[in-house]
C-alpha cells in the first residue's frame, strides 16, 4: 500500500499535461490515504483549475484529518491557492478552521476567498465544538455573515446568503432566525442584482419551515 501511494504521489508531481495532472490527482484522491494530503494541498498552487477542483474534493473527502495540514500549509501570497484551501476548509466544516474562515470572509482582498469563506461559515459542524464555546462562536459567525452580506461584490453577497441559509439550518432555526429574515428583507429592498433577490427568495422558502 505505501509503495502504491508513493507512486501515485510521484505521478502527480511528474504530470506534464493538464489532463495528465487531473487524472493523477483523481487517482491519488481515490485511495483516500492520509499520506496524500500534503501533495493535494500542493496541487492547489499549480494554477490548474481542473486539478484544483479534484484536489479540493479529495481533501473534503479526507475530512478532519486534512484540517491541520491545510491550516499549516495555506499559502498567504497566492490568492488562487488560498481560495481553493478555503473551499476545502469550508467543505469540511471543522470548527478548528473557524478563525481562518471568519478572517477570510471579512478581510481578504480576494473576492474568491471571501466568497468561499462566507459559504463555509454556514457549514460549521457545531456538534464538534464544546457547548460552552458554541454560543459565542455562533454569534460571531452570524455577525460576520450579516456584515459580509454588504460586500461590494455581488458574488460575495450571494455567498453570504447561502451562508446565512446554511447557518440557520445548521442551528435548526433556533439561533436568531428572525434577525436573518430581517436582513433578507432589507437586502431585497436595496439590492439591484436580480440573481441575489432570487437567491434570497429561495433561502426564505427553505427556512420558512423553521418559523
Amino acid at each position, binding site marked *: 500500500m505505501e509503495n502504491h501511494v508513493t507512486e501515485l504521489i510521484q505521478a502527480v508531481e511528474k504530470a506534464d499535461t493538464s489532463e495528465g495532472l487531473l487524472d493523477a490527482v483523481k487517482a491519488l484522491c481515490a485511495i483516500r490515504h492520509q499520506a496524500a494530503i500534503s501533495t493535494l494541498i500542493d496541487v492547489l498552487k499549480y494554477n490548474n483549475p481542473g486539478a484544483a477542483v479534484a484536489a479540493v474534493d479529495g481533501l473534503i473527502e479526507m475530512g478532519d484529518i486534512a484540517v491541520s495540514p491545510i491550516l499549516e500549509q495555506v499559502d498567504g501570497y497566492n490568492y*488562487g491557492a488560498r481560495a481553493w484551501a478555503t473551499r476545502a476548509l469550508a467543505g469540511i466544516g471543522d470548527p478548528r478552521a473557524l478563525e481562518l474562515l471568519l478572517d477570510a470572509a471579512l478581510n481578504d482582498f480576494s473576492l474568491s476567498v471571501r466568497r468561499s469563506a462566507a459559504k463555509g461559515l454556514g457549514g460549521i459542524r457545531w456538534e464538534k465544538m464544546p457547548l460552552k464555546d458554541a454560543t459565542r462562536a455562533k454569534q460571531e459567525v452570524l455577525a460576520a455573515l450579516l456584515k459580509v452580506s454588504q460586500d461590494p461584490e455581488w458574488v460575495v453577497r450571494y455567498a453570504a446568503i447561502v451562508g446565512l441559509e446554511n447557518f440557520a439550518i445548521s442551528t435548526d432555526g433556533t439561533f436568531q432566525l428572525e434577525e436573518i429574515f430581517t436582513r433578507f428583507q432589507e437586502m431585497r429592498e436595496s439590492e439591484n442584482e436580480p440573481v441575489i433577490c432570487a437567491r434570497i427568495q429561495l433561502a426564505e422558502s427553505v427556512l420558512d419551515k423553521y418559523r
Partner: protein
Amino acid sequence: MSDFAEYESNSPSLTVEQALANLQQKDDSGLRYYAAWWLGRFRVKEPEAITMLIDALGDQTDRTPDGGYPLRRNAATALGKLESIAAVPALIDCLACEDYYVRESAAFALEMIGDEQCIPALINLLDGGVEAAVQVDGKPHLRQPYEAILEALGTLGARNAILMIEPFLAHSTEKVQYAAARALYQLTGENRYGDRLIQALDGKDLQLRRSALMDLGAIGYLNAADPIYNTLAENSLKLIALKGLLENHLKQQSDALSDQSKHVMELMDGLL
C-alpha cells in the same frame, strides 16, 4: 484561478476632478491614458467627462511606435462603459481608424451603448466576408476586429446581418466562430447556435473554454447550465456565466421561482 476584478484593487485612486484635469493636460500621456480608463471604470457619467472623452477620440498626440492611438482606445472603451449615446457618431468614425485596436474598442463600446444607428457601419467592416477575414502580415490580429463586430451585431439585434454572419461559423479562428454562434443565437434564438458554444466547453484549450463561458453567460443560454458547471475552468468565470443564464431566465418568469432557476442556483452554490 483568476478574478479579473482583483487586479484593479491596486490601481491608484483619483478624484473626478483629478481625472478630468489629467485627461485635459497634454504633458504626460500616461496620466491621460490612465484618466480615460479611470473615468470608465468608475462610471463617471458627468457631461464634462463625456465631452472630454469624445474629444480624446480624435487625439493625435499619444502614438505608439507603430502608429497606434492608445488614448483613443481607452477613451472609446470608457465611453462604452458610460453608455454615452452622445458618443455614437464619433465612435462610428473610429470604426474607420487605421489603428485596429481603436476599431475594436469602438465596436465593443457601440455594443454596450446599444444604439442601432451604428449597424450599417459595423456591417461594412464584414466586407469581403470570411475570405477576407485573414491575418494581417506581421501583426497578431486579423484584418478587422471580427469578434467585437459580430458580438455587437448580435447584441444590437441586427437581423439584416444574419446572412453575412453565418459564414463566420466556419472561420479558421475558434473565437471568431464563437462570436458568430453567439450573435446568431441572439438574432435567431435557435438552439443549434447555443449548442455550438456548449461544444466549445469541451475543447482542449483553457482560453477557448473561458471564451465560450463568457459567450454563454452573455446570451443566457439556459441549456448550458450543467455543461458550464462541469467544464474545466475557474469557478469565478463559471459563476459569472451562470449568473448570465439566471438573469436572462428570471426576466421571462413571474414572481415564483421556476425549477430551472432553483437548479441554476444549486449549481452556483456548488461553485462558491
